[in-house]
């Protein structure tokens, strides 16, 4: 229930999220003070570590790529009125899809293998999301609960497969053998080097462009396409959808399929772009960060790119911070993410009211 407060569009899409992010950082600052560290130093290290060097920037953009995918995944479902908190599991399965495609088709050349790997990721992520979608659409099982359950099922499944089926014979770690080298998505520094431009090396790879393309695709889909129109109608008003002859059940399944496929992008970036093998826990909780990203980005691709950048800065800067100030671990980032979800998501009404109260009357009247 959003309180019947009308804010001008710019306030709604920029000011309210900005205020909640600032508030989240203030609270996080209190946590830093609470553990006896200086929040200003921490902020400086964070910014320097993430944006202060070409290399830091590369890592920031690498993480941003991850977050764009999971943010888009949450957003697409959100537009259909669904709360997909199964990004973690869908990305995990997508990783399986990547591994199966790449390690079984090693004879293919890279220009075929890479698209097939991406396809494998999308297909497996989509399938893992389609089941909760179907259960919601046809059997009324609440998608939040089923996606939570599917997250755990995914992690159990992947452990089983990596330990018993996919593990390289000599390897003690539960991970697959390395993917064939031609299946690696080129690193950005390699690509630039090919053109004679030297940039600092980092994990950043060409998947970034895939993420940006996906953002454009999602924008086109949601805001410009007939399907996206139907998705938004279902998300906004089921009765209107029925009136319009749009089947909510069909749209729910489609939206979840798209959502799961997008979550698969995380596997593409992490595995095909960087790790070059499937290993446990490569999703590292990013699926949940996707919720924060989508909420803060107002489920709009541009907003998602911006909030992904913010979280990229947080993750990379946070890693540097953890290196420099061992008292502050990378978990700080998780805390900030949690506060942002709380503020921008659950307490949205409160912040809208605060913003409305602080705004001059005439601006509101024009809304």
């Amino acid at each position, binding site marked *: 229930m959003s309180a019947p407060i009308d804010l001008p569009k710019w306030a709604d899409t920029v000011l309210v999220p900005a205020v909640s992010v600032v508030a989240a950082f203030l609270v996080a600052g209190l946590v830093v003070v609470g553990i006896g560290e200086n929040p200003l130093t921490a902020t400086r290290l964070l910014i320097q570590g993430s944006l202060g060097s070409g290399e830091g920037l590369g890592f920031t953009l690498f993480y941003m790529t991850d977050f764009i995918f999971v943010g888009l995944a949450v957003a697409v479902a959100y537009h259909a009125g669904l709360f997909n908190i199964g990004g973690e599991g869908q990305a995990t399965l997508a990783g399986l899809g990547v591994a199966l495609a790449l390690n079984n088709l090693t004879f293919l050349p890279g220009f075929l293998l890479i698209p097939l790997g991406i396809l494998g990721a999308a297909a497996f992520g989509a399938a893992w999301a389609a089941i909760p979608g179907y259960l919601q659409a046809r059997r009324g099982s609440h998608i939040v609960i089923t996606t939570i359950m599917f997250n755990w099922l995914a992690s159990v499944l992947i452990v089983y497969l990596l330990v018993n089926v996919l593990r390289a014979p000599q390897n003690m770690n*539960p991970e697959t053998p390395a993917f064939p080298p031609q299946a690696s998505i080129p690193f950005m520094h390699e690509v630039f080097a090919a053109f004679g431009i030297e940039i600092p090396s980092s994990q950043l790879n060409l998947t970034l462009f895939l993420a940006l393309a996906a953002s454009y695709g999602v924008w086109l889909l949601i805001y410009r396409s007939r399907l996206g129109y139907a998705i938004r109608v279902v998300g906004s008003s089921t009765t209107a959808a029925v009136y319009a002859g749009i089947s909510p059940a069909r749209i729910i399944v489609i939206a979840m399929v798209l959502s799961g496929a997008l979550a698969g992008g995380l596997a593409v970036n*992490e595995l095909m772009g960087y*790790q070059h093998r499937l290993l446990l826990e490569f999703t590292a909780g990013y699926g949940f960060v996707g919720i924060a990203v989508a909420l803060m980005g107002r489920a709009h691709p541009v907003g998602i790119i911006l909030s992904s950048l913010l979280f990229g800065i947080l993750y990379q800067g946070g890693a540097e911070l953890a*290196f420099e100030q061992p008292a502050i671990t990378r978990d700080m980032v998780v805390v900030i993410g949690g506060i942002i979800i709380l503020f921008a998501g659950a307490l949205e009404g409160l912040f809208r009211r605060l913003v409305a109260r602080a705004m001059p009357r005439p601006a509101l009247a024009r809304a």
Partner: protein
Amino acid sequence: QDAFKPAIVYDLGGKFDKSFNEGVHMGAEKYKKDTGTDYRDFEPQNDAQREQALRRFAREGFSPIVAVGFSQESALKKVADEFPKIKFAIIDAVVEKPNVESIVFKEHEGSFLVGLLAAKASKTGKVGFVGGMDIPLIRKFACGYVQGVKYANKNAEVFQNMTGTTGAAWADPVKGGELAKSQIDRGADVIYHAAGGTGIGVLRAAADAGKLGIGVDSNQNGLHPGKVLTSMVKRVDVATYNVFDQVKKGTFKAGINVLGLKEDGVAWALDDNNKSLITADMKAAADKAAADIKSGAIKVHDYMSDSKCPM
């Protein structure tokens, strides 16, 4: 790169696991005390962080960089290639690169000795083993242990459990405790663990039940004085110290460095905490077996040589 700036990347258990990682930590601390050379270290929170940490140290010119644990094998393979001038060491795995020293231990030899002691200390003729992650390395511990037990008492029964199949199995004391309890309920009165942080729960459960535990990696006799029969000490501290020292002195040699009883790489621990538990007879038997192993009179089978345990 001649700069000497040592660094350590621990395994998931963290540097205070009272076990393997802590051993590395203690070796580094000792080196710091002896020479005044400081070092940097990092405790990854998940699997994906190792590579970044290794690369990060390498880029900043740290050398040597000690990667603790077999799970860093694939990460180190990559990073070692990228930084050929940096010297690396990995403990418990083999990475064949010109700039990596691989340090592995003959855990089966040490495990044999504590198995022998366990059989001698057991009143019920039943002893237990709790492993961490179910991997060949840990089966190597188990296999050596079983051989030691049977060597001392042919009819002894050995219960074996592994905690899990992922890295989480190294840090699950609750599960470790449950496994130990179940072995105790079946009659085991001495339990050896090779389970990292999980083993803390094993030793505690044994102590709580009035039975004996056997520590691993570091000397864990002091965790529950009088309740830990002994510890199978793996001198990772010495190994770490030596890596630092070799690089400092320019004697670093890439390649595989296997440390067994002969090299003092493994041992069983005897100190004030367990001296009342080890009878003179037990000590004599263990010392004799150790001498026999060194001389080759006793051949302890290495599980990893053929993925089989003859027992």
